[in-house]
C-alpha cells in the first residue's frame, strides 16, 4: 500500500490518533463503524446477544491492540473485520455448534419477513444450513455476497488469495443450492 498523506477525517488518520491514546478519535471510530461491524458479526454468528457482545469486544480489542495496526500493510476496515472474525471464531469454538444459536433467533425473522408457515420452515432450514457452513465459507459469502465487498478485500480478511475466496464462495453456493432444492422437493 502506498504511503500517502492521511485525510483528517479518514479512518487511518483517526487510528493514528488512537495509537497515541486519543479517546475522542476512538469514539469517532466507534460511532462510524459500530453498525457495520455489528451487521458483519450478526451475519456470522446469527445471534443477537452474541453479536452485541462481540461487537463491544471488537472495539475494546481495537483500543488495546492499536499499536499492532500498521497502515502500510492493511486497511483499517480490513483490520477491524479481522479482529471481529477472530472473536467470532473464538465464540464458535466455545459453543462448538451453531445450531443452538441459529435456532433461538428465528422468531424475529419469522415475525418480520415470512408470511406463511411453510415459507417460514423453508427459510428456517436455509438459515440452519447457513449456520452449518464452515466458518470460512460463511465469512466469504457474507462479505462478498451480502455485504458487497470485493473478493480482494475479503481475501485479506480471510488471509487467502482471490482464487481461494472464489472457491469458498463457490462451495458455499453449491451447498446452499443443494439444501434449498432438497427442502423444496
Amino acid at each position, binding site marked *: 500500500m502506498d504511503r500517502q498523506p492521511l485525510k483528517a477525517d479518514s479512518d487511518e488518520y483517526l487510528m493514528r490518533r488512537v495509537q497515541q491514546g486519543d*479517546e475522542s478519535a*476512538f*469514539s469517532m471510530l*466507534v*460511532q462510524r463503524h*459500530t*453498525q457495520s461491524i*455489528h*451487521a458483519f458479526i*450478526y*451475519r456470522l454468528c446469527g445471534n*443477537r446477544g452474541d453479536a*452485541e457482545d462481540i*461487537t*463491544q469486544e471488537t*472495539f*475494546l480489542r481495537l*483500543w488495546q491492540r492499536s499499536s499492532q495496526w500498521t497502515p502500510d500493510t492493511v486497511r483499517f476496515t480490513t483490520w477491524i473485520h479481522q479482529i471481529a472474525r477472530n472473536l467470532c471464531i473464538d465464540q464458535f469454538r466455545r459453543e462448538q455448534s451453531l445450531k443452538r444459536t441459529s435456532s433461538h433467533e428465528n422468531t*424475529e*425473522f419469522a415475525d*418480520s*419477513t*415470512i408470511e406463511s408457515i411453510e415459507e417460514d420452515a*423453508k*427459510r428456517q432450514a*436455509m*438459515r440452519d444450513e*447457513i449456520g452449518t457452513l464452515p466458518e470460512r465459507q460463511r465469512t466469504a*459469502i*457474507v462479505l462478498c*455476497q*451480502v455485504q458487497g465487498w470485493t473478493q480482494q478485500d475479503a481475501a485479506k480478511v480471510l488471509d487467502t488469495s482471490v482464487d481461494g475466496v*472464489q472457491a469458498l*464462495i*463457490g*462451495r458455499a*453456493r*453449491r451447498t*446452499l*443450492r443443494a439444501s*434449498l*432444492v432438497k427442502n*423444496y422437493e
Partner: protein
Amino acid sequence: MNEQNFEEYLDLHGSELSSWPEHLRDEANELLSKSSSVQALLDAQVAVDQVLADVMIVPKTFNLEQKIMARFAAQKQRFELRNWSAFLWKPAFAATCSLAFGIYLGAANQELPVDLAEDLTYVTFYDYEEWSGEVEDES
C-alpha cells in the same frame, strides 16, 4: 458449455447472469433456452440469493455505541486502578522490608548491651592497667 460447466460458472459468478463474463453469458443463455435442468439450477441459485438476502437482515441495535464507550470507560478505570496498585506496590514493599529489617535488628540487638558492657569493662580494665603501668613507669 454443458450443464456441468454451467454449474461451475454458477458457483463462481452467482445467479446474476449480467455479472458473468460476456463470452460466457451468451453461451449460458443459449444453454438455458435448451435445457430445463439448467434453468432449474439457475432458479435454485436465484432462490438461494433471495433467501440469503432475507435471512441476513440485521436486527436494530439500541445504544450499542454508548454501551461500547461505557465498557471502554469501565475498562480504562480498572486499568488505571491496576496501574496505581502496581505503582504503590514497590514503595509499600520497600517500606515493609525496611520495617521488618528494623524489627529484626532490634530483636537481635537485645543481647548486645550485655556483651558490650562486658567488653567495655574488660577494655576499661585493660586500658586502666596499661595506663596505670605507664603512670608507674613515669614515676
